[in-house]
């Protein structure tokens, strides 16, 4: 029998007395699975345990049947692509050189690695920035480079840790389209996010983590109903905050607007989908350099779910 792409058995991880993950049993195979939870829920801990970057305190992880706490685990990365939550940090490199280095580490000869790097840059729409140094890029651009390194070798399992953070609306849409496409192609994608809307846009299968525990699995509609009653904040970095705010108010897309200073604009909305669609044209016009969807109340939403007994 073919082992699943990812299998966690009784997976625990403590940091001193702090519980990062507690007794997680999970199997993931085929398609996109959203890993949803507020900050500190254990999403990044799970990603690091799955990739062998951290060792479990108890239990184990298998990726394509190979234990990730044993020697020789590096072999499995021929089939896995990982976009960490951490920034790229190889800032002295140009985009193409960074990807070429990683392609060589993946097994390519330098010439083939360069061609593969170019193909990955094209896939994420960054081909014109191939010669740009990473430290001269915006966070959103580096996020796309991060995604490009993930798909260098067309992996069967993709682990994406908050891949949309800091991206402008146009590229968020583009990346979400890519993720859905990978899922349709039969790849397994574990898509971690603290933003319900992002997860909902790419899949209806979710794993909910809260305080290191598995809260629920595969019941997105129920969460949706609870979440719909709560406003969400959208933070924009823009040269035209007042114009955008005025038009959003006029179109009745926002419940509240604030200008925290500088080029920042914060919009509160209960119609997130419509608002993001509305904002896309500003992104295409170059008015918006970064966009973050915050769900500051996800923690309380999850606490409410615990109270209401929404468990798997």
């Amino acid at each position, binding site marked *: 029998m073919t082992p699943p792409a990812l299998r966690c058995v009784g997976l625990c991880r403590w940091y001193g007395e702090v519980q990062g993950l507690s007794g997680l049993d999970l199997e993931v195979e085929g398609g996109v699975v959203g890993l949803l939870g507020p900050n500190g829920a254990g999403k990044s801990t799970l990603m690091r345990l799955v*990739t*062998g970057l951290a060792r479990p305190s108890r239990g184990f992880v298998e990726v394509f049947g190979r234990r990730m706490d044993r020697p020789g685990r*590096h072999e499995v990365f021929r089939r896995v692509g990982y976009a960490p939550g951490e920034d790229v940090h*190889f800032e002295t490199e140009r985009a193409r050189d960074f990807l070429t280095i990683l392609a060589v580490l993946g*097994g390519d000869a*330098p010439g083939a690695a360069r061609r593969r790097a170019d193909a990955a840059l094209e896939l994420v729409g960054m081909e014109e920035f191939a010669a740009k140094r990473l430290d001269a890029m915006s966070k959103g651009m580096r996020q796309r480079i991060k995604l490009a390194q993930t798909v260098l070798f067309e992996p069967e399992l993709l682990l994406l840790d908050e891949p949309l953070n800091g991206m402008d609306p146009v590229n968020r849409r583009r990346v979400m389209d890519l993720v859905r496409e990978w899922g349709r192609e039969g790849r397994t994608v574990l898509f971690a996010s603290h933003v319900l809307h992002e997860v909902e846009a790419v899949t209806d299968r979710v794993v909910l983590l809260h305080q290191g525990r598995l809260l629920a699995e595969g019941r997105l509609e129920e969460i949706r109903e609870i979440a719909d009653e709560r406003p969400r904040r959208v933070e924009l970095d823009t040269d035209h905050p007042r114009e955008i705010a005025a038009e959003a108010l006029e179109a009745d897309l926002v419940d509240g607007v604030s200008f925290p200073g500088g080029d920042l604009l914060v919009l509160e909305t209960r119609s997130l989908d419509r608002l993001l669609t509305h904002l896309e044209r500003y992104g295409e016009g170059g008015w918006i350099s970064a966009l973050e969807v915050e769900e500051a109340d996800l923690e309380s939403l999850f606490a409410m779910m615990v109270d209401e007994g929404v468990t798997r």
Partner: protein
Amino acid sequence: MRSSVLRVLAGHSLRRRLGGWRFLGALALAALPGLQLILTWRFGDDVELFPIYRSYVVPLCLYFLTPFATMLTMLPVVGELYESGAVGYLYTRPTPRWASLLGLYLGAEAALVLVLAFGAFAPALFGLTVEPGGDWLRVAFGLWAALALGGLAYGALCLFLGVWSRRAILWALFVLVFWGAALGSLPGSLRSWSLHHYLFGLVRHWCDVEDAFSGMFPPIDSPPGVLRSVLVLLAAAAVGLGLTSALAERKDVAA
């Protein structure tokens, strides 16, 4: 494991070292021995520079430049990747961790060797210009070779400390300055436990430096031979790399 992996990572590591402020700091340190020679030439009364080079510049490179330039260059090589979590980009490839670490180490060593070359050759070239003749280049080359071997050994230990501890700088001061330079110049047999003892062995043979370094340090009655010194320094480098590799297999990458 393919040589291209080592090559691309060494290239990245070298570019990163050369492009950072630490490299400029290390070069500034390496300029001090030359500065000492220039000041002696400018303000000294009828001094011969070649004996000054052997008696003062050589020990300055040995006991001051080597430990501090090595710390500046080698401590952050992997340490900063661990601190930022960016080492995860390398460790999630189908390449063993030790190969990634070795590539990064080799590139940073190349940067360190450049710094040490500047420290050894710049004063020698100045001396050769104002005081032609003599064995300037032979001694400078001997000094550089000895320092480079010392850099290999201490560099590998710095690599280990960078992965092992967030307070790597304190541990490096202890290992390179106290255990290395200070213990290595103590009288008696205790010094043979220090890597600097073997560095001195090389300098003694390759640079014809007197035991006492003009009274700066106590004399050594029987300095170790070249072969033994080279083997000890290479073994120390291998141990440092081995420890780093073993630790990297076990240590968590920071969040």
